[in-house]
């Protein structure tokens, strides 16, 4: 079996993009800390920002993680802004205290925020100074997760991009897979690649600073998340080469992604089939089961995580849905192009957001399922629409074959639920 063929005429890749600008109902890049700190267990994320940043971090996770989190906010106070205190001295003091209390920390990320960017607090200088002070025990890096520069998942992109320049150089012919995945999913992926004979696969981010991830002219890399444009660029600047592919969501997406890597490494069809046939069949069965009530339904994506295009590809190609609008905060054609090519032309592809105008379009279209952020979900439910809150797609394991059924289930559950309780209230419309 081969990966799905692109549609003639370029599918959605050649469709015009509706670009909008106005109020955006999205998180800022700081939110990425919620999953990044879980992935890199020897890292601490220190946001230099305001009370709003701290409040965002505790609200965005939905629940607070109370096992002493490996992130915190150094809140700027009046004195820091008025120049009464030297912000760098203050930062050094807080970092010293933090590292004394947490000897397990090996990597410290200083994360810039809107206020720190506006007052032009130079965190790269601070990171250099602190690296000198704490090397070799602790490496200090910086990136910006500010809302004036980053949207939601771009925070992970900025974080990973900040790590690329300090990766050791190598001439080894190696595959690097980029993007934070839950450990269990990452292990499945490494297993699949190993079965095809692709060994020594490096992951960025690595689970700890001690792993020997390196980069050089013989490195090829695949992205497992569509929002990693800056990291992609940073790796290319280190001489590595990107393997473009559809993203590994669903059976077909995962197969296409693996196929692109297999082709790069000259894996035979037989070896590819031996590694993928069984999990492919499993994934197809799981999707068929979980997507039964998705067939023929329409879906509308509000921009959120940049996963929208690959997920719309999955829902339209593998679950039988039709897309009405697929909104994404940004569209990097070089990265999501392969997915766009696999989508039948027709849906509005939109980039950026003017939330009120987009809500008008959603209300007019009355999609069967609306994928949107937490701020919009309940209000739209109250208007009779069925919604899937998008942040769960980022927090839940959804990549690769074994999660394909779960991914379909995330979309079908709201519809199933609406059907189950449809007798309750005349204001709730039945899904059927």
């Amino acid at each position, binding site marked *: 079996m081969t990966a799905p063929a692109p549609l003639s005429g370029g599918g959605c890749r050649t469709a015009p993009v509706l670009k909008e600008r106005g109020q955006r109902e999205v998180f800022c890049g700081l939110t990425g800390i919620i999953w990044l700190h879980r992935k890199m267990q020897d890292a601490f994320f220190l946001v230099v920002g305001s009370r709003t940043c701290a409040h965002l971090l505790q*609200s965005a996770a939905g629940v607070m993680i109370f096992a002493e989190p490996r992130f915190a906010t150094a809140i700027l106070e009046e004195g820091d802004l008025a120049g009464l205190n030297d912000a760098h001295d203050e930062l050094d003091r807080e970092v010293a205290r933090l590292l004394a209390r947490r000897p397990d920390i090996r990597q410290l990320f200083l994360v810039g925020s809107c206020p720190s960017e506006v007052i032009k607090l130079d965190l790269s200088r601070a990171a250099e100074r602190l690296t000198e002070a704490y090397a070799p025990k602790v490496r200090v890096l910086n990136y910006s997760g500010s809302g004036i520069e980053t949207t939601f998942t771009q925070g992970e992109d900025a974080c990973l991009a900040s790590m690329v320049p300090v990766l050791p150089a190598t001439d080894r012919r190696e595959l690097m897979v980029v993007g934070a995945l839950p450990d269990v999913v990452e292990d499945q992926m490494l297993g699949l690649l190993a079965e095809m004979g692709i060994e020594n696969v490096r992951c960025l981010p690595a689970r700890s600073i001690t792993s020997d991830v390196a980069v050089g002219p013989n490195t090829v890399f695949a992205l497992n998340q569509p929002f990693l444009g800056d990291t992609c660029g940073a790796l290319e600047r280190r001489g590595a080469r990107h393997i473009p592919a559809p993203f590994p969501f669903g059976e077909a997406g995962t197969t296409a992604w693996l196929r692109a890597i297999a082709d790069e490494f000259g894996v035979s069809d037989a070896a590819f089939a031996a590694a993928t046939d069984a999990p492919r069949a499993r994934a197809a069965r799981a999707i068929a089961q979980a997507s039964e009530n998705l067939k023929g339904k329409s879906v509308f994506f509000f921009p959120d995580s940049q996963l929208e295009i690959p997920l719309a590809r999955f829902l339209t190609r593998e679950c039988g849905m039709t897309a009405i609008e697929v909104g994404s905060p940004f569209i990097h054609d070089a990265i999501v192009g392969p997915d766009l090519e696999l989508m039948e032309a027709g849906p509005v592809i939109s980039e950026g957001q003017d939330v009120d105008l987009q809500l008008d379009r959603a209300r007019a279209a009355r999609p069967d399922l609306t994928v949107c952020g937490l701020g919009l979900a309940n209000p739209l439910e109250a208007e009779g629409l069925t919604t899937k809150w998008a942040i769960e797609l980022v927090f839940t394991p959804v990549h690769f074959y074994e999660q394909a059924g779960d991914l379909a289930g995330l979309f079908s559950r709201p519809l199933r639920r609406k059907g189950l309780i449809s007798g309750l209230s005349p204001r709730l419309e039945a899904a059927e």
Partner: protein
Amino acid sequence: MKLTVWTYEGPPHVGAMRVATAMKGLHYVLHAPQGDTYADLLFTMIERRNHRPPVTYTTFQARDLGSDTAQLFQDACRDAYERFQPEAIIVGASCTAELIQDDPGGLSELMGLPVPVIPLELPSYQRKENFGADETFLQIVRRLTKPAERTERVSCNILGPTALGFRHRDDITELTALLYDIGVDVNVVAPMDATPTDITRLGAAHFNVLLYPETAESAARWLQRECDQPYTKTVPIGVGATRDFIEEVATITGLPCRADESRLRLPWYAQSVDSTYLTGKRVFIFGDATHVRAAARIARDEMGFEVAGLGCYNREFAKGIRSLAREFGVDALITDDYLEVEQAIEALQPEMILGTQMERHIGKRLGIPCAVISAPVHVQDFPARYSPQVGFEGANVIFDTWVHPLVMGLEEHLLHMFRDDFEFHDAAGPSHHGGHAPANSETAPPAHSEPARAAPSGPAEIIWLAAAERELKKIPFFVRGKARRNTETFAQSRDLQEISVDTLYEAKAHYAR
């Protein structure tokens, strides 16, 4: 710079959002970067509101900073007016916009919108959420309230309820019924459910009920000055406070004010014998000042608990809470650092915590039961059922809520009877928690049990002899922590290096009450 992990209060513009979201016909234009829209989910998810908060964010980006963010603000303001047609608009800046100094107030004034536009000055780097709510409400009242003729019947306004408040929705219902019962009409409830037009009518009330000083004290003071309306000082949470409140209303209005107490059950429930086990339970109380004050009185005078410690996170009310603590013979903990609160609780080892969602998490970590009495709270503290805190029904609700996390009297009795039964092991926890609640110290992190083993400040560590340790294990789990602590304190006071079975029982006799 101050290192913060979790915060009790958001920034002041979130306080303004709590006022705007509670009201109807008001719109908030907030000069803010993208990302600040996260605050919408507090209302739509945690409070399960079925409407978006009436907030327009200007969503400026880095590339706008060099050009014209002021224009962006005016466009957003105009669009918001045209789309939502509010009766009034409040305008302000979030923390980042405050730094770029666009002056939303001045900008909106120049636009000549046909509705009142109320500018807010909320210093994000000095103040917090409650201040933001209080100040926003004050500015709305100052701008919109006109002197008015008093209503014919005696009436009052209820001031303070906002979106995201702890049980504000049900408190209004309960209090309105209570006031009606004692012969007082409610003129306007604000901010919750009030329109800007309603705010213009505040002056018609004979007096104000200041339900939540955190969010409405400034407005109540202004109305006292400008509209000659006295306001009530007692917050009617708890039996005693409700009775005092009724008395206060009687004094203000000259009405006889007799309330129907036939549905009040707390006094009998507290008196009934099953509640004997509540006697002297050591509780630690933390939250906003208003709810802490109410809870302390209920705990001591109505439940028969011992208040082991208390405090609040809102410094604006520190003075009152300090004197309350003196009255209770404890030190007040005034802090917004949850780590400090955790330390205090760990040191005091209370048998129950009355706190916010932060203390519930602390309680989980330390294996101490917790009931929630104050914001900030999470989604499960916005229950579907009617569950006010104020008035007599509020007292009933509080009794149930506080008793629920504890092992009940009859159950405690059975635990003693069956404690050696293999099916009735310590780890089972209270049966009404489905037997899944981790009650055993083994499931608590070592942070909990370690300090309890070493004497806190003794010169040398006190050693538990094996036999004493075994004996300690025979003590039911829910009092074991206290027994361990008391024994160690006792041993320390006697300069003992070791704890034997005898020491354990000496201590037990010493602390018997």
